[in-house]
């Protein structure tokens, strides 16, 4: 009788729990006010990125030499650029380019960095030293030189931006994951798995890797912000996307000559970049808050 009572009580709990793993996240997420709204903004951005070509009121590539550098107006909500192209349309279509560039590059960086970090942290010894020293060198190595080399090898275009930014991301991810791995390696349940006779591969992927996922997600979202900035800095140095492409960074750097005469050409893409990066950072921060058990109140 009593046992039944206890059990039924627990099963009740578990039903609730099962349903709640997502909804628990949701409740917590709703409480992260800034991150919550930033998340909406990102979803909005993603929608724009996907449906950009449909949404854009004008052809983002179509010049109109009779309407150059027009300030925002009824016809052109964000004004026109130096060729008379509609800036709003360019931003909308550019969202897809900018976001996919940063997303892909961070993804590539994260995958490689995570593998390196896991191996480095788990096996230690010379492998660790090799990977860590290499990442030291990477940190000290000028980004620009690397970017030039990559552009030289791959030719100009978006791929090289992706590769360049990905390469810059690798050491950071490797370090982060290594740190997490070192901590997770000491966890008692990892020792328990070893005592059961589990192989290294099982320990790494089944036990350690999941431990690193949450900080990876957090870092990932923060890093997307950084990589939007990095890509636009590459444009600033003339190493980014194709000049005509409405990539945000390119718009920003091409427009900087007009800061005085037609500030909207710079300010609007700059603002869009700022807001997007901010949103990714806020979301990253929010995720960190709810994923890191330490910061639980």
């Amino acid at each position: 009788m009593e046992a039944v009572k206890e059990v039924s009580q627990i099963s009740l709990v578990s039903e609730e729990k099962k349903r709640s793993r997502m909804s628990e996240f949701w409740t917590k997420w709703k409480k992260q006010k800034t991150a919550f709204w930033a998340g909406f903004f990102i979803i909005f951005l993603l929608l724009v990125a996907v449906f950009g070509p449909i949404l854009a009121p004008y052809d983002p590539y179509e010049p109109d030499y009779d309407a150059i550098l027009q300030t925002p107006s009824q016809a052109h909500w964000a004004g026109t650029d130096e060729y008379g192209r509609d800036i709003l349309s360019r931003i909308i279509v550019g969202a897809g380019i900018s976001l996919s560039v940063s997303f892909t590059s961070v993804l590539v960086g994260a995958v490689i960095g995570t593998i390196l970090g896991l191996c480095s942290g788990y096996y230690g010894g010379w492998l660790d030293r090799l990977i860590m020293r290499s990442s030291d060198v990477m940190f000290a190595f000028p980004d620009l030189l690397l970017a030039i080399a990559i552009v030289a090898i791959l030719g100009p275009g978006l791929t090289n931006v992706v590769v360049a930014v990905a390469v810059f991301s690798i050491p950071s991810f490797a370090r982060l994951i290594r740190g997490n791995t070192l901590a997770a390696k000491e966890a008692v349940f990892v020792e328990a798995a070893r005592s059961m006779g589990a192989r290294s591969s099982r320990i790494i992927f089944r036990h350690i890797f999941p431990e690193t996922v949450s900080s990876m997600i957090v870092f990932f979202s923060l890093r997307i912000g950084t990589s939007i900035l990095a890509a636009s800095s590459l444009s600033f140095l003339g190493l980014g996307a194709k000049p005509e492409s409405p990539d945000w960074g390119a718009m920003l750097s091409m427009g900087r000559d007009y800061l005085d005469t037609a500030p909207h050409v710079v300010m609007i893409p700059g603002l869009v970049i700022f807001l997007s990066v901010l949103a990714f950072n806020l979301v990253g921060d929010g995720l960190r808050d709810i994923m890191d058990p330490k910061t639980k109140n």
Partner: protein
Amino acid sequence: SSGNSPTSSGNSAAPSTSTAQETPSTKKDELVVAVNENFITMDPQNTGDALSSGVQTSMYEGLMIYDKDLKLIPGLATEYSANPEATEYTFKLRQNVKFHDGPPFNAEAVKINFDRMSNQENNLRAYRNYKYIKSTEVVDEYTVKVTLNQPFSAMINKFTTGIISPQALEKYGKDIAKNPVGTGPYKFVEWVQGDHLTVELNPDHWNKGAAKVAKITYKPVPENGSRVAMLKTGEADVIYPLPEQQVETLSGAEGVKVERTPSTITRYVSINMVKKPFDDPRVRQAINYAVDKDAFIKVVKAGYGAKLESLMSPTIAHYAKQGEYEYNVEKAKQLLKEAGYENGFSTEIWGNTNSDTMKGMQFIQQQLQKVGITVDVKSMEEATLSDEIYNIKSPEEAKMQMWYVSWSSADPDNAMRSLFSSENFPPAGANTAFYKNDLVDKSIKEATQSSDQAKQKELYGIVQENVFKEAPWIFLAVDEILYGKRSNVDGVYITPSGGIYVREAEIK
């Protein structure tokens, strides 16, 4: 001695904007010139970039001098004569000229300098021109005779190279590049690497009183916006170059003046004539018709510039206007059709990573799109670009199809021989269009061998006519030199070739 009274203050501090009060440059007797790049060397005989030589003109003088309009005027030589074959030049030197470090300027000094440049071992940039010198003779204290080993009429333009104090050459050796000592109106004070270079008025200059500013500081300020901001705040008194886009804002600003001069800089797209479909002159002409030069100047150059109506700037001697490929999309299409490219084709255009270049390339892309030519814009970092273009073994190997570029030259020889003579195909030279025309080759050669101005004019005319007709380029524009000054600055000019002319500098 400078005739400026130290109390004639306040004029640059006057502008009503609250900006300029304290900035050091507003002290009346000092001029700050902001330019867009770093200076590389102060050895006038080993200088390749316009900016370094622009700065050097304040300290160094050649036997001949370019004035602010790029006219040759007597410098350290008061007069000269050449034989008709253009192989012998005799100079009468100016007397009572002293180098900054003391010793007098004389024929011996000229010889030492010329010998230095014509000696291959010294590996100087100037060797390129002075290699034609067979010998330099000191006729007397103030007369030198230079004998060339072959006729070279353009040589007179090259005698503008600055003359270095032999004593300083002795003293510094290679380090003369950091310690310039010449005869010019300004003396070298200091050069802080990467930061600034300062010169002060030379009280013993032979043309004393022409320059009136006690001190000039040259500063590299690479970012356009910053340079303009400096002019506005009064941190800089002269800025060059002034980006076209910024002119408008500055024109309204108080205390600031925008100056324009036609430049020697031609802006064009070099077309690889070896490559299909550009081997067909109709295609090249079509492209020329397809590009609206007025729009180019309006959009890319913000309205500052002139259409390029020959292969060089009208400021250069023996310029012959050729008219223009008037913007005509129909005609372009027609020509393409005749050439068999009714449906257009795809090609690529190369250029460096400057934002101006990228702008220009995009413009070309947009224009050619209208006649069905799809252009892929590839901007490459300068060094990579030059590697791709010049480091090739034969014309067939060249990957370049179109190259958006500019060229600046001070004399017709340089403008034509380097770019259109068939001996100058890369890697040997800069004829990146691989333009080859025997008549043109011959005319260029003959022109260099004659000191007869009329004949030169005729020969160079032939060259210009042919080249323009065959369209190895998209002829776009002649840049305007745009520079900004504080309105109280006088007598400072940027020459059409980008030199900084301060021989009459004055602050009012």
